[in-house]
């Protein structure tokens, strides 16, 4: 088991389950999963993860605001944004980094693409 513990905040049920599956397979402990911003903030404070993966497009409190609120209390929090391709994405990422995000991961576009990439990742383990 790897020592970093992860919290996943992701709007899409499919993506939440896929991320959990592949990261657990790689030895990470998934402390919890949140589907909206309020849930993400509550679970961050309850579970204190080492790494938090945050969908920019969370319902309610959005991913950037979640990042801003957590980073205000804990500037060293390791929050990585999950982003999708859209015209505004570059500016959204810049805003997320200003809010305290430590980076981003570009999400695969389709479920088929996700399955292909995850399958590739699992084959290499």
């Amino acid at each position, binding site marked *: 088991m790897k020592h*970093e513990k992860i919290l996943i905040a992701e709007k899409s049920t499919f993506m939440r389950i896929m991320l959990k599956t592949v*990261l657990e397979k790689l030895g990470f402990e998934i402390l919890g999963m949140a589907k909206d911003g309020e849930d993400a903030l509550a679970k961050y404070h309850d579970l204190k993860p080492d790494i938090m993966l945050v969908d920019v497009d969370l319902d309610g409190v959005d991913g950037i605001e979640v990042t801003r609120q957590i980073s205000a209390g804990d500037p060293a929090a390791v929050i990585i944004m999950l982003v999708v391709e859209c015209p505004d994405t*570059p500016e959204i990422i810049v805003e997320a*980094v200003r809010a305290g995000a*430590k980076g981003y991961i570009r999400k695969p576009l389709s479920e088929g693409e996700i399955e292909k990439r995850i399958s590739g990742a699992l084959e290499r383990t």
Partner: protein
Amino acid sequence: MNKKELKILIVEDQEEHVLIMKNALEKSERAQRIWVCRDGEAALDFLYNRGAFAAKTAYPKPDVILLDLRLPKVDGLEVLKQIKADEKLKDISVIVLTASERGEDIIEAYKDDVQSYLLKSAFIVSKTGKMEGLLDVLLSIR
């Protein structure tokens, strides 16, 4: 060589950071091979099998590049542009590992199709690299 092993090229000029990255990668259970280039010119020579990297078998096309942006000789963003402009190289996943929080760098890297962008402050938190699993997360969701 195991055909499923992940081929990783680290492009980083700071020795300490290279060691932290290699240490983190080597603790992964993933089958992999790792090469290191210390500047942007060497990275391009590696990718085009030029000069000291002419032997294609010894220096194959990587699956993933961990790329710093501030590099001697050729800047990381220029290396990225050349990779993404080349039909034979553009499918390589590029993960930027940088100290730069500049909006211009973030936007340029995104427009040049980097898969992930990670601030070194998250990964290189100490000489022992406590967040060593973070690279595995990025490599897993690419």
